[in-house]
């Protein structure tokens, strides 16, 4: 029973992802794509949550790890014979190698994680706004280099001829893998130590927790998950450097905060709610069910609703709490998120 209660919080997000995937697969391709998009968004937001949610430090740099993952998986999956046409300036070892779908995703995670580890070594000493701006600087530099350095990718062009292996099944499995990894991390001793440091840093230090080390571990792990999500992304859309840049940074952070940034449940709910709303409005722009919005008004509505949700529920839709198996009335309220 106790075991069950420890693992109960992961069931709700998993169920939600499964339901999304099953409902989505009943639709035809043009609508199905919204559901795939939402599931890829879940993977990115869960990756972001592993660091931001557990450490309480905002990161604007995670889309850099998504971008690096996309580049890794994208460059390595294009068939060798097509590389000279689309990416003529690649390094020799990149243009001579092609790997399959699963290895490309694993390599994306590896490269994303290593990059996050290297970036985190100096940056995790910072906190507060300085950390926010420094992680943002990582995004700027990464985007700038990917955009112009054609030895490692297509530069300003879009990735073409990457096999489109991220279908509904792969997007759902990817989101589930991300959620399970994030959950196992947050109930591990590392996750608990980092959350202790988030809630009361001096007390955490007093019991011997190294805040720097715990943040670094979380940063590297979430970088790996972000790289993995980037791999999923490039296997589903022909993206370029503009796609994995500012807009994606803001929308994923907004998803996390709107869902409730201190819980995994919040990350998943936020990603699905905002993607769902965005897709509905996109359909409405094309004239759905009598509603006919002028094109471009979608972002106006999403922006306004984001502001309204934040004003009415500043700690997010879920209040930043995990879902409980049972509500047990106790005299002393249980610590949030610990269950």
């Amino acid at each position, binding site marked *: 029973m106790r075991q069950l209660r420890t693992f109960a919080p992961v069931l709700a997000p998993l169920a939600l992802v499964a339901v999304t995937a099953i409902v989505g697969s009943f639709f035809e391709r043009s609508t199905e794509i919204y559901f795939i998009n939402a599931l890829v968004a879940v993977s990115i937001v869960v990756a972001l949550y592993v660091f931001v949610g557990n450490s309480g430090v905002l990161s604007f740099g995670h889309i850099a790890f998504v971008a690096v993952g996309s580049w890794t998986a994208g460059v390595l999956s294009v068939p060798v014979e097509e590389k000279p046409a689309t990416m003529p300036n690649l390094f020799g070892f990149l243009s001579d190698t092609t790997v399959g779908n699963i290895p490309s995703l694993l390599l994306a995670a590896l490269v994303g994680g290593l990059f996050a580890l290297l970036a985190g070594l100096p940056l995790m000493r*910072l906190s507060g706004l300085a950390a926010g*701006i420094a992680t943002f600087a990582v995004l700027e530099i990464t985007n700038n280099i990917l955009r112009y350095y054609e030895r490692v990718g297509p530069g300003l062009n879009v990735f073409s001829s990457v096999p489109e292996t991220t279908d509904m099944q792969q997007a759902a499995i990817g989101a589930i893998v991300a959620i399970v990894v994030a959950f196992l991390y947050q109930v591990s001793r590392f996750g608990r130590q980092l959350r202790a440091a988030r809630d009361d840093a001096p007390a955490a230090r007093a019991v011997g927790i190294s805040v720097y080390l715990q943040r670094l571990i979380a940063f590297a792990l979430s970088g790996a998950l972000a790289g993995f999500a980037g791999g999923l992304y490039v296997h589903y859309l022909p993206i370029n450097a503009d796609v994995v840049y500012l807009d994606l940074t803001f929308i994923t*952070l907004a998803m996390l*905060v709107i869902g409730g940034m201190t819980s995994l449940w919040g990350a998943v709910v936020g990603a699905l709610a905002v993607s769902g709303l965005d897709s509905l409005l996109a359909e409405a722009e094309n004239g759905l069910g009598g509603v006919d919005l002028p094109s471009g008004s979608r972002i106006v509505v999403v922006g306004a609703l984001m502001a309204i949700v*934040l004003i009415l529920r*500043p700690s997010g839709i879920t209040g930043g709490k995990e879902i409980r198996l049972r509500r047990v009335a106790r005299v002393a309220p249980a610590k949030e998120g610990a269950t």
Partner: protein
Amino acid sequence: MSAVLASGLTDFLRSAIEPQVQVDAIGIGAIYALMAVGIGLVFGVLRLVNFAYGQLVMAGAFALAFASDRDWPVWLGIVLCFGVVIALSMAMDRVVFRPLRTQSPATMLVATFAVAFLLQAIALLIDQSDDTLGEPAASLAKLNLPWTILGTDVRKITVVAIVTAAVCLVALVLFLGRTTVGLQMRAASMDFQTARLIGVRANRVIGSAVLVSGILAAIVAVMLTVQQPLVTSTFALRETIVVLAGVVVGGMNKLLSATLGGFAIGYASGLLGGALPTEQSQYLPSFLFGLVILTLLVRPAGLFTRGRGPVERV
């Protein structure tokens, strides 16, 4: 390898000390410093990093383009620009920031993202309604012509920017130092709770900070529109991001250090833009943000702050 690096560095320094590059860099620095004051003032009283500040500037630029399109005289366009920006700035505070005043910095920051999104999307709708990309604001363009002083082309707007920035900063110092509201604003930015306890009225102080930062945004809008007369929905977005980085690098807790940070990053980007060889100039953002990271690692509390600064509760 090191010889190549050394000669590259010498070339860089040689172009960097050219008067042309210096004047342009100071001009950019002056405008960025004004934006930094606008962001720093609001941060001082609200602890809010206003990401939507650039959209205020963008709204002002749209107002100028609107006036220019209807052949209004320049002064009327500028009046409209000030009116729109100040009204929007006050509305933003009343509708979004006031209800969120007691929330965590993360929530407030994301709320300003939402506002920025919203304003940018509205601007895009307006922009696309006449099937053109961008609205030209041509009536101000004559300020962009150069004067030649001792062989250096100085654009009139550069002089205007430097003079305006200097005048604004002096006026602001007088306002903060010599008026009651200014004194209350300084008190509130040091310790809001205590300031309220001794009778500082929160809404009045925050309202004045928002008003002043709106006026500064309008001034910046006029000067940026002269330099880039084609107004699009992403107008001033890039500048805001760079200024935000500059403000944090300079030190956010003091208005002076934030302003110096804004100037420094504008100056640095002008210098890099003017002095980097052409084949490397596309990597300008990497150089600039590389400097940002290095500075933050060496002086996390701010480049222009004295001592270690307050201990942050991580």
